[in-house]
């Protein structure tokens, strides 16, 4: 029983990261219909930037994260304005190609600015809590809590604020939203800003828990899209449930079946879910 609980805790930390990546992807996809492949590389940029600010400039971690978040917010605006807006009314394949090109560009910029070395964001969180035989490292606990906080904030923003309602309206019916006076030029900017800021948070978490290195972002975005499909395209609750399910399934698969095939097992589980619910766990039929 302790082993199962431990594996669930193990899976929740990485699951929290998947959720944040998937939340960014699902809002962009739900509103704009864009498969934003560069999201993983942008997340890594956020992690690298935080590392740089902490290690090179000696800033406190919290301040470095704040700066990275603001930069991420602005980066999201730039990405929407310069990369996706020009092809908004063009064929979908154009946005697809832009997304691929953007991925390579951001990866290249990361390499140019931050180098090829693996980096780990240093933190002071080295305590380990032991609750009834289940161990929880302090850093993992904070990652889980931070992810939960961000999910709650995102949900409140989308459900309770006027901008959130406008975002949902555009996602539901763009033409009707225009008729209701929603500024559909502003909404994509907001969506990309929030999405990129969430990605930056995920990048910081990966950088502190594990490491940031070239290629890590690609793996994350693949997992993010898997979560999107598992949870239901465009669904925020779906991203939350899907991310946690994927993270915990990976941990349980590695612990109880085979560590060599943990990714395969997680994806097989995902396919099985989709056979029963093609619209995803929380998607609308």
């Amino acid at each position, binding site marked *: 029983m302790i*082993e199962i609980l*431990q*594996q669930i805790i193990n*899976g929740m930390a990485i699951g929290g990261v998947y959720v944040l990546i998937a939340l960014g992807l699902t809002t962009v996809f739900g509103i704009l219909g864009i498969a934003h492949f560069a999201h993983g590389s942008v997340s890594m940029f956020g992690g690298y930037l935080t590392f740089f600010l902490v290690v090179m400039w000696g800033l406190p971690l919290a301040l470095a994260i704040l700066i990275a978040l603001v930069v991420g917010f602005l980066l999201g605006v730039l990405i929407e304005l310069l990369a996706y807006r020009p092809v908004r009314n063009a064929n979908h394949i154009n946005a697809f190609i832009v997304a691929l090109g953007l991925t390579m560009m951001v990866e290249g910029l990361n390499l140019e600015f931050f180098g090829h070395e693996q980096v780990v964001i240093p933190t002071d969180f080295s305590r*380990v809590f032991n609750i009834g035989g289940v161990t929880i490292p302090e850093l993992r606990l904070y990652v889980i809590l931070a992810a939960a906080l961000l999910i709650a904030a995102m949900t409140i923003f989308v459900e309770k604020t006027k901008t959130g309602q406008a975002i949902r309206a555009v996602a539901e019916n763009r033409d009707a939203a225009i008729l209701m006076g929603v500024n559909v030029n502003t909404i994509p900017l907001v969506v990309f800003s929030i999405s990129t800021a969430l990605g930056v948070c995920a990048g910081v978490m990966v950088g502190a828990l594990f*490491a940031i290195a070239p*290629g890590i972002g690609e793996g994350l975005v693949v997992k993010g899209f898997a979560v999107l499909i598992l949870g239901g395209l465009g669904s925020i609750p779906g991203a939350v449930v899907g991310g946690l399910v994927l993270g915990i399934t990976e941990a349980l698969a*590695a612990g109880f079946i085979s*560590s*060599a095939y943990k990714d395969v097992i997680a994806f097989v589980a995902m396919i099985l879910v989709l056979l029963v619910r093609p619209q995803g766990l929380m998607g609308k039929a």
Partner: protein
Amino acid sequence: MKLTTLTAALALAGTTALAAEKTLDIGVSDALTGGAAVYGLPQANAVKMAAEEINAAGGIKVGDDTYMLNVIAYDDKANPTEASNSVRKLIDRDGVKYILGFCCSGATGAVASFIENEDAVMLVGNAAERSITTREIPNLVRTRPPADYTGAAAGTFVAQKGHKKVAVLGALDIGFYASYVDAFEKELEKAGGEIVTRESFGLKDRDMTPQLTKIRELGPDAILVVGYVEPAAFIYRQAVELGIDVPRFGFTSGSEEQFLRVATSEQMEGVWDLRPTELTLLSASDNGIAYHANYSEKYGIAPSPSSPYAYDQTYALKDAIEAAGTVDDTEAVAAALRELPVPDEVVMQYLPVDGKMFDVNGQAYTSNGAFQWQGGNWVFVQDLPSDAAAYSAFLSTID
């Protein structure tokens, strides 16, 4: 008197014209970026440093000619296709005949599969897959011993420590890591021990807690970690976080600096690394101490323990070219390599077979050692049993 001076001046001018200073391009194919760059980049740096030292000491003497070395390095990303392309480019476009580096087995194996048909000599460094030197390739030599040579020694050492139940966590889909564990297991079983589980991870994996949780439940006497430095460092850190309190043995060849990027010194305390007796400052010979100081000064970072394999390649090549008396006849240079005594300048502690650095298979052997992390450093604790002659005879029996 005037005539004598004139004659001497003419003779000197004539000698200078005949004994020209030439440039010899040597190639490096290695992982300069990506996950394996922790091994490949230091190797490429080591070759460049050795070449500069050789040039500063007067170059390579071949008859009346003196050759200054010029290093052309390409990034193969430890990828077999990239490595094949790099080597093709070096041979076909740059006209290089001597290729060094090669940190990683997959990429090295791909190049080894065609190098025999080329007018070139391949000097392999850190790549540890056994099959690289079992193919009887006459124009290939390797400075690092195969992984199973070290794995057997490690198994004996762990068994002698009294450990009976060992859990393995490693990059087991990589051949040479698997062969290290196989040889380890054989020796452990001889002493009545067993491997209770073999858990694996991918090279990009950084979260090993699921595997470690499983291992914790099995209650082993010890853990054996085999894999690249970066994932291994996470394993050591996460094992402590999960409260696993058994001896941790490894086969990683990482430097202090590389481990400390991920784990604290306290989390690393007591970890063993069972590997060829590679460079650590505390166990180094005079050559090793000088190498460490020069490399650190030149590159602003300490050398990785395995980087001298490439440094030593360069000096072995120099001596072989001088012994063969040619830079153009690669067959003669390859043959000279196989007859070469261990050069004076090398950093690693080689065990010659029949007085030669490389055996008939083109394989060199170092001693194996047990290193332990103590107070922030890898400390050499003791030699591991290393019978180079017996292993060389065994290697010759493998097709």
